[in-house]
């Protein structure tokens, strides 16, 4: 039963607080371009792995689904992702929803950051806004954020 213990450990960390909550109204979902952003430290096989406290991101191509996890934390089950990448980055499901017309389209790019970080100031001030700009420039309207 490691999950309960590991989650209890995770609860000890204080979450970042935001004084105001921005709220963006998306276009109709059936017309929206959807991207996934994961904190599972995903990367392509030919990309450099994440360093231990790295706050940057990797750009994941939608059409090259060879994603690997470079997450440093031992505190998660990696076997689900090892067997089915949709467990973390559900692109096959998004393809199906796009085909059904539920969503407009799946973005050509997605992003991954490395979760389990203690200091998020660089993500908040630097790599987060940079990643957002990249997605905006790629025409993304809606982002599904998935944790590790």
């Amino acid at each position, binding site marked *: 039963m490691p999950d309960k213990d590991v989650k209890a450990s995770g609860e000890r960390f204080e979450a970042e607080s935001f004084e105001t909550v*921005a709220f963006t109204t998306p276009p109709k979902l059936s017309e929206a371009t959807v991207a996934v952003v994961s904190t599972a430290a995903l990367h392509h096989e030919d990309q450099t792995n994440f360093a231990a406290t790295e706050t940057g991101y990797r750009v994941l191509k939608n059409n090259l689904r060879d994603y690997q996890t470079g997450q440093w934390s031992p505190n998660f089950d990696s076997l689900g992702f090892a067997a089915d990448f949709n467990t973390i980055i559900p692109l096959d499901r998004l393809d199906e*929803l796009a085909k059904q017309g539920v969503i407009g389209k799946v973005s050509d790019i997605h992003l991954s950051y490395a979760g389990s970080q203690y200091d998020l100031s660089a993500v908040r001030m630097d790599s987060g806004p940079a990643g957002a700009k990249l997605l905006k420039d790629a025409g993304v309207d809606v982002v599904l954020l998935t*944790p590790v």
Partner: protein
Amino acid sequence: MSTLAHVFEQAGLATIALGSIRKQIAEAAPPRGLWCDFPLGRPLGKPGDAAFQTRVLEHAFSLLDATEQVLEEFAERISDEDNEALSCPMPPRTNKALHPALDEVRGLRPAYDRGIALYGNRAATGRVISADEIEEALATLVRVSEGTPWTEAGIPGIPARVVQDIRGYYEVAALGLSDHIPSAWAGASWFFDETQGGKVVLNARAAMRDAGEERQNWYYMAPVDR
């Protein structure tokens, strides 16, 4: 995760954040949050279950209709408490001159290769060392468990990182030995509780702890429940 939601939303992107730990997602309060009480590492819940994953996405996308900050809970929960223990046939000893863990690594290689052929290398090896280097890396941890200081044992990288590759090797071998995708944490539990390799890792970790090594050098060689 929720920090990114706030930042992205400020930049004009509509976001939905999935969260596995209720306290974290409630306190971070992303604009649209869906707490999914699933095991860590499985934010969409069930690998290989398209219908389940789609239900999670449908609930997540329904939050886009909200006109103000919202946090909802996905109706289905997944716990690892009732999980079946992973039962894998272990390879027989073939070389009694070798440490049992090293013999085990060799014996598991066909299962590892089968797991890679079936699923690819998504979380197996390659962070620091390749599959071909697992046996040598485990031998360095045997030395640590027997009293050699970790800095003199020849560990081919940061211990926790090397152990991730060793654990990945074993867990993918478990995939190759299993006729289904094991439930959450079953692979890790099998590695640490049932295999010689897992015992070596835990013994090396304990030896480093007992020798007064800095916590950061040994603690992350195993999950926090160990």
